[in-house]
Each structure stands twice: as structure tokens, then as C-alpha cells.
């Protein structure tokens, strides 16, 4: 029974993966490229940054970077909280 279930799930997974490879969107041909073209043409003039990627990260999509920084802050806080508490317990025990 378990073997049959495993086989069926494997087949389903393989089918999905093959379908994904066959139906993948062609690389470098976006459906809607208005925003890309606007940023490529105007980023240097509007933000004064030669590095267009950085101008997107810190200017056009700054709010996204804020979330990224928040994730890092939370991760650091969590690690410090957990590991230091465990160490103190270990020392006192």
C-alpha cells in the first residue's frame, strides 16, 4: 500500500516537473515590460545612480528593502535571544 502511494506521488511529482519544464516562460521575454523599460531609461536621470539595480532596491522598491532589513533584524534578535539564554542556563546548571 505504501509502495503504491509512493509510486503515485512520484508520478504526480514527475508529471508536474516535466510540465513545468515544457511550459516554462521563455527567458528574457517578459509579457509586460513597460515598467522595466521605464526604469532602464529613467533611473539614472531620476535617482542619479549609475547602478540601476541599486536604484531599484533603494529607491523604486525601497519599501521592499525595509522589509528585508526587518527580516535580518528579527533573525539577529532571535538568534541572540535563543543562544545566549541557552548558554546562561548551561553555565548555571
Amino acid at each position, binding site marked *: 500500500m505504501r509502495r503504491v502511494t509512493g509510486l503515485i506521488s512520484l508520478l504526480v511529482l514527475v508529471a508536474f516537473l516535466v510540465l513545468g519544464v515544457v511550459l516554462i516562460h521563455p527567458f528574457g521575454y517578459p509579457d509586460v515590460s513597460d515598467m522595466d523599460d521605464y526604469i532602464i531609461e529613467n533611473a*539614472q536621470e531620476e535617482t542619479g545612480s549609475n547602478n540601476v539595480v541599486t536604484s531599484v*532596491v533603494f*529607491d523604486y522598491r525601497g519599501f521592499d528593502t525595509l522589509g528585508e532589513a526587518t527580516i535580518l533584524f528579527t533573525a539577529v534578535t532571535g538568534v541572540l535571544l535563543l543562544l*545566549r539564554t541557552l548558554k546562561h542556563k548551561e553555565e548555571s546548571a
Partner: protein
Amino acid sequence: MLSKIVRTVTNEFMLFIAVFGLYVIAHGHLTPGGGFQGGAVIVSGVVMLLVAFNYQEVRKVLRERALTIMESTGALIFISLAFAGIGAVFFYNFLVGTPIFGRIPPTGPNPGDIWTGGVIPLMNLAVGIKVAAGLSAVVLAMALFSGGGEVEE
């Protein structure tokens, strides 16, 4: 603590790694890279210090408490720069056109000018401080947890 050769090489290389990290952060608006990447480069130097020396030695120069304060400072600078442009919109680049980082480069390929980018170089610096301090604190905490990193020769 590893052998004297490793420690000496680490001492010499730490300077170059720090300078390269600062370069990646400071030129984030001109060349590939930026705050996150440059901060990670600096943290790689701290990891090298931790491997070559033990935790007790590194602890004399780098304290977790100071690092967490630095991280919070970087985050605060980042958010205040974002809020400073709130007159127009959140994350508005209000420094373009002003004497501070306000020059505008010509469109297309150009040699690059460090005084361009508006708030982007400042945000890169803030994020660089934040990432370098935060990840160093994580690495130090892990070294503390794993028993002070006492590696026998």
C-alpha cells in the same frame, strides 16, 4: 587558537578584507554590490578572525552588546532617511539635485561620479553598518554557544 602562521596571515588580510568591504559599500551606487554585500564581506573577515583566534581573544575587541547597538543605529538611520522624504512619498530620493550626493550622471555608460545617487549612498552605508554588525553578532553568539571556539592545534 590556530598556528602562528595562520594568525599572522589573518592579521595582515583582515585590513584588506575590511577595505574591500568598505569599498563595496561606498561604491554601491556605481558598481555591482551595495550595503548587504559589503556588510557580508566584512563579516567574512570577522569569521576569519574567529577561526584563527579563539572566542576569548576576539571578544576583547568585538562585544556583542556594542554590535547590537551598531545594528540598531544602522536600522534607525535607514528608516529616518526613508521618512525624510515623506514630504513627497515614503522613500522619496530628496537629495537629487542638492550639493550632497546630488549630481546627475549622463544617461548611458559613463565613468561614474561618487557624488551621485541622492540618498542611495547614505542608505547603502546604513544598511552596510547594519548587516556587518548584525551578522557579526550572530557569528559571535554562535561561537559563544559552541563553547568559546576552543580549537586545539
